[in-house]
């Protein structure tokens, strides 16, 4: 009788031990909620249970939403961040702007349109602000051609000219671009509507 009890005890012990080891191995192998399961950047994330729990209800979400009058079909895809490094503030911001434009106008801004990165860079270079893409403006050509302004108060726009380059050439100061634009609002609705062949008045 005592022998039977002892055997039963050993069996129970073995079963519990096996279960414990198996559970530990499963947790070690799969590591639910481990940061390496999250794609992309290693940003501070919420705890595992909060993110993982709602995923059961997530599968049916698009079907539920489709009839609610809010259209998601034309919303732009999230910009894919490089998986090795954290996306820069510029990429994050313009990704967000693209999201906002998609939500408010129904489509993401095309390159060059207001709200796009290209548009912003162009605006900044016109305004004379240093940006990541435009190196420091060299003052050299100004000294070479200082007489343009004295000859005429008008400027014939050549191919490749921008308000910034004209301001740089005529005044040696790209910051004058906005002044030139303000002087010519009668022929230009926007700074980027400058075309070769136009004759702009110089302030």
């Amino acid at each position: 009788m005592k022998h039977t009890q002892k055997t039963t005890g050993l069996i129970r012990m073995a079963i519990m031990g096996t279960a414990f080891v198996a559970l530990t191995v499963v947790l070690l192998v799969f590591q639910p909620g481990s940061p390496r399961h999250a794609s992309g950047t290693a940003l501070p994330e919420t705890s595992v249970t909060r993110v993982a729990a709602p995923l059961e209800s997530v599968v049916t979400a698009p079907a539920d939403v489709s009839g609610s009058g809010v259209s998601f079909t034309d919303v732009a895809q999230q910009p894919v961040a490089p998986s090795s490094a954290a996306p820069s503030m510029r990429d994050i911001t313009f990704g967000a702007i693209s999201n906002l434009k998609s939500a408010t106008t129904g489509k993401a801004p095309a390159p060059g349109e207001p709200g796009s990165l290209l548009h912003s860079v162009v605006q900044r270079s016109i305004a004379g602000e240093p940006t990541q893409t435009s190196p420091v403006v060299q003052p050299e050509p100004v000294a070479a051609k200082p007489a343009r302004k004295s000859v005429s108060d008008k400027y014939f726009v050549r191919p490749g000219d921008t308000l910034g380059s004209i301001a740089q050439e005529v005044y040696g100061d790209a910051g004058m671009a906005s002044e030139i634009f303000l002087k010519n609002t009668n022929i230009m609705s926007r700074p980027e509507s400058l075309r070769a062949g136009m004759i702009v008045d110089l302030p």
Partner: protein
Amino acid sequence: MVPVNRTVAVTVACLGSPLLAQSSAITETARTFSFSMHGEEVTITRRGASCPNSCVQPMSVAPGVATLGELEVIAFLQNAVSNGSGLLIDVRMPTSFSTGAVPGAVNVPAATFAPENPYRPDLLSAMGVTGVDSTPSFASAFSIVLYGRGTDDKDAPNAINSLLDAGYPAGKIQYYRGGISDWTQIGLNLSVGQ
């Protein structure tokens, strides 16, 4: 029976040890709160997520900024978002947003609202602010509701304060404090990859 009891005791001790971890911080300044009731000291502690990553946020972010519940958020979606005058903004990072967000939400990470972001004027412009470079006008700016991970996510309040500093009128900003955590906890659906 002795070995069995010992095994059970050891197993329970091994599995139960994580539960005995020390309490975590509730806010930046407080780990516990105490009060007395009928002369007895009562203490409020917290387990799991801890400050500074997960600080419990107050109900009110700033004067004039209303705090919403789920039904108010849904009403906002049905009214302001539907007629194009409002935006529901998810301030989490894109990786979190893509795993599931409130239907109709737009992802604008909280960091982009910070004054250090050199591209913030472009962002404000996309939110309907005019004249961002000289004298900003918020007359046609969208009315917005911001939310983050949940009641212990400081990102949404931070974003709201940054917007207020930028001049965004408090009357056009609202705060959904429950965030994605409360939204899912009560069983409301998410929209994935929108």
